[in-house]
């Protein structure tokens, strides 16, 4: 319990301060979360869902936590901490220290004309741990495009442990995009939980363009019939970057469709992991589900762990999964070089061709075009130059 100690002590010391500085309806969950966290501690790599990322190691350094005054009169959110898995240590840790809850609430039948963009910029002179909490609620028949962007403006060590709770009411349509574009010193833990009603469509795309250590968890519960959920992901990693995507799609009712496509391009000594579990519960007949994870390791030192999982307890379903790990196509490289294209450019074209499939699935055309440019710049190395970094020089 070495890594946990500092968080337990900090909570005990700062409890009064935290309670005074944030809304009562958030405080109401803290002590319970504290008990959960103190008892469970960080999950070890022996826990199935945490096999590929060493949580205790990532949380061991002493980051500061900002407990400054936030508005205590923020309107109460009754769904707060009811969708997330509150027995999970990382969720509990977030619940202990989250000072405010960014809330997007789209009312019944409403459809905001423009996408809603949440930009999180990490900035500061000292290392900091960020306990971000986001709640997205779409009431019945609501529609929304939401873009969440993680950026880092300071060359500083940051540790983000965020919890995102999403409630999709019957007949709602959500397009949710998450884009991480930080730097090598950033560690990100994202814990997303979605509860989806009947006749919904949910399209979630996660892009890791640049990062340090990242672990994205996404759990979806399908609770109403005739809903569809798409989880797509695109990862570009090189140097010593680490990206772990872990998903669970829980088909609790019949007649739902889920699809996943995660693609990774790994260069240098980057490490990628994907574990996706599809659970089809008894009675969830006529479920259709497809899971694909395709990976390109551009060097012999890049490493990919992939673990698709199907767990089916109904007998009339159509589910498939597939995963591939491949290298650069040498014949294609030679063909391009024979046409005068440099080896570097040829590699870039191949990587870009591989990864853009995910971007092309994005329904929001303006974002799609922007992301194609960002991916291109990223592959050319233009996004990856962080100031003063020895590996970038």
């Amino acid at each position, binding site marked *: 319990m070495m890594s946990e100690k500092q968080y337990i002590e900090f909570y005990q010391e700062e409890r009064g301060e935290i309670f005074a500085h944030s809304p009562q309806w958030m405080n109401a969950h803290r002590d319970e979360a504290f008990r959960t966290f103190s008892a469970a501690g960080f999950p070890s790599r022996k826990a199935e869902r945490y096999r590929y990322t060493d949580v205790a190691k990532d949380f061991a350094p002493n980051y500061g936590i900002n407990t400054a005054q936030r508005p205590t009169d923020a309107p109460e959110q009754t769904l707060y901490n009811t969708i997330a898995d509150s027995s999970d240590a990382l969720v509990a840790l977030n619940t202990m220290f989250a000072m405010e809850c960014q809330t997007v609430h789209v009312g019944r039948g409403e459809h905001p004309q423009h996408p809603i963009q949440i930009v999180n910029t990490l900035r500061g002179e000292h290392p900091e741990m960020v306990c971000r909490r986001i709640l997205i609620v779409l009431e019945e028949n609501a529609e929304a495009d939401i873009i969440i962007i993680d950026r880092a403006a300071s060359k500083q060590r940051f540790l983000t442990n965020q919890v995102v709770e999403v409630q999709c009411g019957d007949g709602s349509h959500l397009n949710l995009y998450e884009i991480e574009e930080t730097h090598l010193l950033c560690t990100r833990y994202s814990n997303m939980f979605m509860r989806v009603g009947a006749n919904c469509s949910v399209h979630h795309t996660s892009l890791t363009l640049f990062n340090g250590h990242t672990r994205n968890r996404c759990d979806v519960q399908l609770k109403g019939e005739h809903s569809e959920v798409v989880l797509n992901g695109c990862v570009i990693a090189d140097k010593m970057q680490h990206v772990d995507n872990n998903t669970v799609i829980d088909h609790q009712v019949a007649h739902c469709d889920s699809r996943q496509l995660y693609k990774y391009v790994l260069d240098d000594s980057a490490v990628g992991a994907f574990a996706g579990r599809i659970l089809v519960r008894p009675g969830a007949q006529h479920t259709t589900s497809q899971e694909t994870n395709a990976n390109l390791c551009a060097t012999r030192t890049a490493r990919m762990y992939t673990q698709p999982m199907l767990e089916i307890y109904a007998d009339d379903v159509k589910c498939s999964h597939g995963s591939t790990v491949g290298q650069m196509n040498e014949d*294609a490289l030679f*063909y391009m070089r*024979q*046409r005068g294209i440099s080896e570097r*450019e040829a590699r870039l074209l191949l990587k*870009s061709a591989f990864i853009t*499939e995910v971007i092309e699935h994005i329904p929001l055309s303006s974002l799609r075009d922007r992301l194609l440019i960002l991916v291109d710049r990223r592959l050319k190395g233009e996004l990856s130059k962080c100031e003063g970094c020895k590996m970038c020089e």
Partner: protein
Amino acid sequence: MLEINNLHASIGGKEILKGINLTIADGEIHAVMGTNGAGKSTLSNVIVGHPAYEVTEGSITFNGQDLLAMSTEQRANAGIFLSFQAPTEIPGVSMTNFMRAAVNARRAAMGAEALSAGEFLKLMREKRKIVELDAKLTSRSVNEGFSGGEKKRNEIFQMAMLEPTFCILDETDSGLDVDALRIVAEGFNKLRKPETSAIVITHYQRLLDYLHPNVVHVLIDGRIVKTAGPELAAEIEKKGFDWIKEEVGL
């Protein structure tokens, strides 16, 4: 233009070329014929710099430059073009992006500025007509879903775009029907400048009827065993290679 001296090359430790000597002057077309496995494709791969082949002895000079010291892309940008026997499919890379990268690389090597998007598309349209390549094909991924004939036509289209000075046609006629062969061969003749040289690798007389080679070489077991005028191709068409093997004692 191209001078090959005592060229020995191997792949995976197995020697394929066992001392090739070949001199091709500006504007000349040389046909290379030979039995399967004689080393014809190896010769073309070695000239363009395929990384899998190792040159163990000999030299190749191209317009006075030491070709073997140049990378694959440097050779291409110096004006050497290979029309592949089996063109590679590259899923996800569009013909347009691929061609733009290639054309601009060649222009950069010649010290010219990159083409604007408009100029480039105009060039694509012009050159496409020469080989009667469908516009739909240039909007697809490189060679993906192309028929055998379309792939070969696409090779000549790329040649038209890049305007090489030295071409190697490696069995460009294989898998082509009579009409497609005519279109491809006539396309090549139209594109060819007086100083353009070429090596044409083929098993059949028909392609040579269109291209009118100056010289025909016979390659057997890694060596050029016989060189003669175009009438040699007609003779091989009739009699096969056995009489040549007997003649040279193989």
